[in-house]
């Protein structure tokens, strides 16, 4: 909530600035994030789930059976380094085709922005809050496992070294050691996704693309025969997910 006030204040400042500058009229725009998914360029929707048809960097054939992930705190940074951070979040549920389009909920002043970004997952402050809708979606991480929320649940099957189908659960959470009464957190594993500079002139739709294949490479070539299930308590695996996640999202286009 605190961020909403910050947004209002900054918005008012920007509007005030526009009053001073008679040559530029700032309008309030409605902005939407659309999320699409591909596997190295091949479009992926839930229609493509449940079939072993994708090959990861390590050469394993995989299927996708469940994919949902959390993004939060969409942030607009102006060319004068003013920051508009929206205290929002969205659970993108590819499995059920829900929330692939996310209306940001606050109007954004038109203008030049040096960067637009969002957080993959929750930052640690947000992760410590209680979200009834995410609990209801069974997206929380029980306190005994470190608490907070999943950042992503990505489940599927792969052909193992014996060419047999096996399951994987690529679940991203806040990396934790010694979960339980006295947990320690070796490294933050949420990350900021920078979409780059954008000029907003009108109501805008950001088309954001996730290349699922990137979760399995760059910098860590992911060997599903080694890292397949029980990854939530594996802080080293969580850190590798964090590292691989840096290159997963790109801004495809902005339509307005």
């Amino acid at each position, binding site marked *: 909530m605190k961020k909403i006030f910050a947004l209002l204040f900054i918005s008012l400042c920007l509007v005030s600035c526009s009053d001073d500058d008679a040559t530029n009229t700032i309008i309030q725009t409605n902005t939407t994030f659309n999320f699409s998914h591909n596997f190295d360029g091949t479009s992926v929707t839930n229609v493509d*789930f*449940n079939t072993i048809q994708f090959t990861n960097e390590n050469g394993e054939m995989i299927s996708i*059976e*469940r994919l949902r992930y959390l993004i939060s705190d969409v942030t607009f940074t102006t060319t004068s380094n003013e920051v508009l951070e929206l205290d929002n979040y969205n659970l993108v549920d590819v499995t059920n085709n829900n929330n692939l389009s996310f209306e940001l909920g606050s109007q954004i002043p038109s203008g030049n922005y040096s960067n637009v970004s969002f957080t993959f997952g929750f930052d640690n402050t947000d992760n410590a809050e*209680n979200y*009834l*809708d995410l*609990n*209801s979606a*069974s997206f*929380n991480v*029980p*306190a*005994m*496992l470190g608490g907070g929320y999943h950042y992503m649940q990505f*489940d*599927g*099957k792969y052909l193992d070294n014996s060419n*047999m*189908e*096996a*399951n*994987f*659960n690529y679940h991203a959470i806040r990396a934790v050691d010694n979960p*339980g009464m006295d947990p320690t957190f070796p490294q933050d594993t949420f990350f900021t996704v920078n979409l780059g500079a954008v000029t907003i002139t009108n109501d805008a739709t950001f088309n954001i693309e996730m290349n699922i294949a990137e979760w399995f490479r760059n910098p860590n070539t992911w060997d599903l025969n080694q890292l397949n*299930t*029980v*990854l*939530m*308590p594996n802080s080293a695996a969580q850190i590798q997910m964090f590292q691989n996640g840096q290159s997963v999202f790109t801004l495809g286009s902005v339509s307005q």
Partner: protein
Amino acid sequence: MCFYFLFFSCSSDNENDGYTPVALDLEIPEIFSSNIIPPVIPNDNTQTVEGVALGKRLFFDQILSGDQTMACASCHSPQNAFTDDTPTSVGIDGVFGTRNSMPLFNLAWNYNERFAWDGKELSLERQALEPVENPIEMHSDWEDVVDRLQNHPEYPEFFQQAFNTSTITKELAAKAIAQFERTLISANSKFDRYSLGQTTLTPQELNGLDVFLREDKGDCFHCHGNPNNPLWTDNDFHNNGLDATFTDLGLGSVTGDPNDNGKFRSPSLRNLAYTSPFMHDGRFATLDEVIDFYSEGLQNSPTIDPLMKNIAQGGVQLSAQDKADLKAFLLSLSDPSFLTNPDFQN
């Protein structure tokens, strides 16, 4: 003039409306309101005192069945947390069905509103219609049922009070039953009281919770809830590895999608002390058998859920101590007050 017409209109409507049912809000337990979003109440069937009372009367009344020997409560008994104690349930003709009777509680929190083991019923109201005409359940006919209700000495007045009409329809009967079913709330288990800081768990129960949650042990929570999702189910559909080949397609028989074959709705783990036997076909007589199945008995199949672990080894391989502790924890989710709540008795 304008005000005159407004007052006149209001006055006229009130005279024609007759009895106005009294709105009845569900009593939402603290453990729910502090953790999960509100229940689903359809706009066209809001809860009323009279609607719930009518629904309760219908739920326990054998008038709904073909030979008037069976009520909803015959397979959904309050003493069994609104299920029965047989693997599958017998209908009025002595024929057993193929599915275990599902216990009934906390139904208003099934956010996707897909009911029954296979998700074929897309609302509680629609579900309430089905058993009456099912030939291996009540084996009746709604026209006959409506005739019996319409000619009953009391029911027309009950419908008048609940729905402002004495003209009975199957849809209104189903609405009333659904209203009653939404009042069946169970949230007073030992674990609920523990979560609210009102009691403590034994070391065995606490270790059982640990087994339940840990990914490297039971990993039950991904499908069956956790302390922050106290429904103890995700109300979603999974193939949990019961069979290598399917005699019952479950959700697949409803959607027609082969990827859904063998998937059934995760039942809530509340009230397991009263709801045996278990699974969609009631194949496991005891909770011990269920735990053994998840530990060593999983069967692989093309649609098995990726959340099922160590399938090649048959399951999560719990020790005897962990099994016993897990059972102790699971039983702490049972709510004896739900069985004796006078509002839920005939």
